[in-house]
């Protein structure tokens, strides 16, 4: 009973069986998180480095908590304030850290493929916490866990990913996972933010009208509009984006059915989603965050056991 891979580089490399195993193990860890002592000794002989070359709140704290709850020793690395500013290369940085007998690396980097590169050169197990615009596998796993918790089995469920699909590693990981688990996937948003051949490449539906997307789906996973991109001629302004594509209370009420609302965070209130929707009973945004710790505990536990 093991994962088919040594690392978690992406959902692309996982089998449906691997995904089932991670989700069912996460369920048991969620129970551990309700106990008075939220700790198990499983990884007490393991040292894990959190190598974050990019900013993060949720993911970093979530991984750190997951590691501590498994009784592992954790070391945090952030690029600012390190020798990266002196020009030290990625490989040198990691090899130096590994020489201090660190067993696993959790890594976030702005270059797509960085963890794959590392996996070829170092013996430690690697978990991708987000690489460029490639994948963010643990986010997709906790999204899947949250959908299952709220709506049951993923098979046949209709999931709409709404927003900046083009630049979203959360979208890609979600598409891979949902398709592997038999869900139906739609990507929705302005045409400038949806890759041209995505329908053929991944067998997903494409929708440029958000109301239609909400009418169709059981779950809407709303993606962040990256504020940096408002000057890149991809959409006219944040206000116009909100008017045409924002998930507002008025829009949700107009579809006259229950749609579960998700968001990976951080939220730009008033842009891709309004506060009253984010805070509503249809939203499982905070449950996603809670589930993130349990899902990451499952991933760490299943990969640590694989050490040769």
């Amino acid at each position, binding site marked *: *009973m*093991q994962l088919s891979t040594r690392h978690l580089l992406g959902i692309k490399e996982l089998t449906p069986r691997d995904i089932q195993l991670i989700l*069912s*193990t996460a369920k*048991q*860890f969620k*129970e*551990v998180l309700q*106990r*008075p*002592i939220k*700790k*198990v*000794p*499983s990884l007490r002989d393991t040292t894990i480095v959190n190598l974050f070359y990019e900013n993060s709140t949720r993911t970093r704290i979530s991984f750190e908590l997951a590691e501590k709850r498994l009784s592992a020793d954790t070391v945090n690395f952030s690029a600012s304030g390190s020798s990266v500013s002196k020009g030290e290369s990625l490989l040198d940085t990691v090899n130096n850290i590994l020489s201090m007998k660190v067993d696993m690396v959790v890594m976030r980097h702005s270059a797509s493929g960085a963890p794959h590169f590392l996996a070829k050169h170092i013996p430690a197990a690697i978990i991708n916490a987000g690489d460029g615009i490639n994948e963010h596998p643990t986010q997709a796993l906790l999204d899947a866990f949250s959908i299952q918790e709220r709506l049951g089995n993923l098979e046949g469920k209709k999931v709409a990913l709404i927003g900046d699909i083009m630049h979203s590693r959360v979208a890609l990981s979600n598409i891979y996972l949902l398709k592997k688990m038999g869900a139906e996937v739609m990507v929705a948003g302005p045409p400038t933010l949806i890759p041209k051949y995505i329908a053929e490449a991944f067998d997903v539906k494409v929708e440029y009208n958000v109301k239609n997307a909400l009418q169709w789906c059981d779950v809407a996973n709303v993606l962040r509009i990256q504020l940096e991109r408002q000057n890149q001629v991809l959409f006219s302004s944040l206000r116009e984006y909100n008017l045409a594509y924002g998930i507002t209370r008025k829009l949700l009420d107009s579809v006259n059915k229950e749609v579960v609302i998700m968001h990976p965070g951080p939220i730009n209130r008033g842009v891709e989603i309004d506060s009253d929707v984010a805070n509503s009973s249809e939203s499982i945004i905070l449950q996603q965050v809670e589930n993130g710790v349990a899902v990451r505990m499952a991933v760490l*536990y*299943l990969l*640590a*056991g*694989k*050490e040769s």
Partner: protein
Amino acid sequence: MTTYLDKQQLYSTIQSLATQLIEKHGDFKDTVIIGLQTGGVYVADKIVEQLRHKLDAEIKYGKLDITFYRDDIHKELHVANHTEIPFSLEDKNVILVDDVIYTGRTIRAALNALSDFGRASKVELCVLIDRKFSRELPIQPDYCGKAIESIINQKVKVEWDKEEVILY
């Protein structure tokens, strides 16, 4: 493969364990039963049924999975089952129930797990089968259905669907 206990003998062994528990713990006001996943839960289910029937009272019963307390995760990963202990163990007498005690490592893990749920005033061990002389730790049952002085190569299995205990 031989049948060690048939259905009749299995149930009378369970009856005898329930009787021993009542002799020691009376009305079970301050005593709780914890069954270990997965074999111990089957035994505990049957014992608790007997206790509820004989005492005509509510018995506090929880299930504990010790997968995350094992010390061998680098050798083999096991599937975790549910843990459900919906009451406090503080100041309670805990009776840990398992089907077979062999090396004692499962019970060691269970004791570690239990201490994370609170400070029990006492913990006792109740097993259906004791494989004597196979221990790797100094742990012995307080209540025992049957003791087998088996050789290391023989395995004991409780077949709950057939309701019998076999040696193979």
